[in-house]
């Protein structure tokens, strides 16, 4: 009976294609919006995620998220280095500076000052130059997006100069860095040099990056650092989620995307579900005929499920294909770089489509039984008389 189910499905080409298109559209919208939302949220923690070497971030106790820092005294660094279980601890400056190119083009930039000796936190993926060259006086590394802003259309080249808050800086490397939330260019320099760029405050140490000794519990080490320094220590993962959580709680982004995702779900559930439901209702007489002929309930339900699965899987596959194509294209553009089709969104959308289709099938599955008697048609008068009180008898 499977081929009958598929022929019934594909018999009306226009309806069949509209069903697939609806599921494809809903799938695309769901996966697309969820991935963009997650991509944007992950951007808020870009600078945290990009530091792969450290286990713990030590910061002021009141720090809410990565962008907002309150500097603390350099003494804390030495105290942390003396705590049992700390393999190494290095300073990290994170702040903002104004970078002006030779042609006068300027922009607020994120400035990261890396430990002079070890350069912990340096970008992993260098597109041009070597990160070790940060040891050269006045050396800075810029991210690809920043370079494209200052020198649009130019091929990557080193040796260009900037003014960073009126201090000279020379480009020694171009790196690939995760896109920051505010899309500011990212500049890397040595810690000591970064302090020169931003001027003098009493305290300038934003974070201390800590590597734990092997087999030392990170939770236990965090507790020790917090109790001995009065600062706060968080794992990279915890700090990332704390930062993301801040944006989720304090911005309208989740509401905005939530509405879009809910709309996508509604489009999927209502339009795709209803279209399939109506499709099955239109076929009720055919199912009634099959049941009268002797096709069992189980096989009819199997036929409806096969139709639903066919539509669902084809629509889902097309939707995911379009979504993948979308992200392949947007990945090439600097403003949307780093936002990818997440596997979690792909799986989640698949489950959602399955639920929608299953709900629509079960809703329509309950109706075909009542269509059975309509196979026997009589004159209008007799039907009114004979069947008027029967549910679904038409």
């Amino acid at each position, binding site marked *: 009976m499977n081929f*009958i189910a598929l022929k019934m499905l594909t018999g009306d080409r226009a309806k069949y294609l509209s069903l697939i298109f609806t599921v494809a559209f809903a799938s695309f919208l769901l996966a697309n919006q969820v991935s963009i939302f997650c991509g944007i949220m992950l951007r808020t923690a870009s600078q945290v995620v990009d530091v792969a070497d450290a286990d713990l971030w030590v910061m002021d106790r009141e720090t809410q998220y990565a962008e907002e820092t309150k500097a603390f005294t350099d003494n804390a660094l030495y105290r942390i280095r003396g705590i049992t279980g700390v393999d190494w601890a290095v300073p990290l400056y994170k702040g903002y500076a104004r970078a002006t190119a030779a042609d006068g083009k300027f922009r607020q930039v994120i400035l990261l000052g890396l430990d002079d000796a070890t350069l912990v936190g340096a970008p992993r993926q260098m597109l041009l130059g070597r990160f070790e060259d940060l040891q050269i006086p006045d050396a800075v590394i810029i991210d690809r997006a920043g370079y494209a802003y200052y020198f649009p259309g130019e091929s990557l080249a080193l040796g260009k100069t900037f003014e960073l808050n009126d201090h000279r800086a020379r480009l020694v490397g171009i790196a690939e860095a995760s896109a920051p939330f505010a899309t500011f260019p990212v500049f890397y320099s040595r810690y000591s040099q970064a302090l020169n760029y931003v001027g003098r405050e009493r305290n300038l140490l934003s974070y201390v990056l800590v590597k734990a000794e092997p087999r030392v519990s990170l939770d236990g080490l965090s507790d020790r650092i917090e109790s001995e320094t009065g600062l706060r220590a968080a794992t990279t993962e915890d700090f990332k989620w704390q930062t993301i959580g801040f944006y989720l709680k304090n911005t309208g982004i989740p509401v905005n995307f939530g509405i879009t995702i809910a709309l996508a779900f509604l489009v999927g559930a209502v339009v795709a579900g209803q279209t399939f439901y109506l499709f099955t209702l239109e076929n009720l007489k055919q199912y009634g005929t099959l049941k009268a002929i002797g096709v069992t309930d189980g096989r009819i339900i199997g036929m409806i499920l096969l139709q639903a699965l066919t539509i669902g899987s084809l629509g889902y596959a097309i939707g995911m294909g379009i979504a993948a194509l979308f992200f392949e294209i947007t990945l090439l553009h600097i403003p949307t770089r780093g936002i990818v089709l997440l596997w979690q969104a792909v799986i989640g959308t698949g489950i959602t489509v399955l639920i929608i289709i299953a709900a629509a099938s079960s809703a329509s599955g309950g109706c075909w039984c009542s269509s059975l008697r309509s196979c026997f048609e009589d004159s209008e008068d*007799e039907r009114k008389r004979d069947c008027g009180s029967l549910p679904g008898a038409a």
Partner: protein
Amino acid sequence: MNANEIAVRCRALHKEFGDGDSRIEVLRGVDLSVYLGEMSFLMGPSGSGKTTLLSVIAGLLDKTRGEIEVLGQRFEQLSSQERIRFRRDNVGFVFQQYHLLPALSAAENAAVPLLAARVPRGAALAKAKRLLEELGLGPRMHALPAQLSGGEQQRVAIARALIHEPHLILCDEPTAALDHETGQAVMALLVQSAKREDRAVIVVTHDNRITEFADRVALMDDGRIQRVEENGERPRAQGINRKRPPLDVISRGVGL
């Protein structure tokens, strides 16, 4: 099963719909016997309960009270799924509006009962094609229902009713959607192809012009069988059951 054995026996059969004030009693004590080897007609005015009786005989509706036995089987002893399987193995249907599946070809439509009985698709289609050839639809077996005339569609429906060789064929107004000539041809075809000693055919109809094909006519009114006229009480078409021309000749003769 042999001719003159009872295929369907109804005794004091009642069928009601609804409850309380909205209760309608459509069948009010039907007594009826249908015999193997015969073509029995159920006739009567609109609202007399013919279709309801046919539905109860088919096991599509449950009786309210009374007795009904179909091919020696009491439906109340069967589960719903057993009843469906009983229908699949023993009953063929011809509907007024044909109810062919629009996406399937004529051959595929005719093969549906065999496919429902899990006969392999190739074998089912081969048998359907042979049957359609016999019914004069050889050149049209790949056509979709929408590409067939009303008479051709009804012939496909007859093929579908016959293909699994059931012992009981139920026809609901098989000629109502056809013009007189085509209706006559369809009935002749039905008689030629469906009448067998081990098979009973029940035809519900309003159409007085086809009663010549009946062996027995049960007249229904107000939910009861008022009278049964047996073979010989009405004028019958000469030679219908005696000399059988090939089926495709009958079809072509009336331009189906």
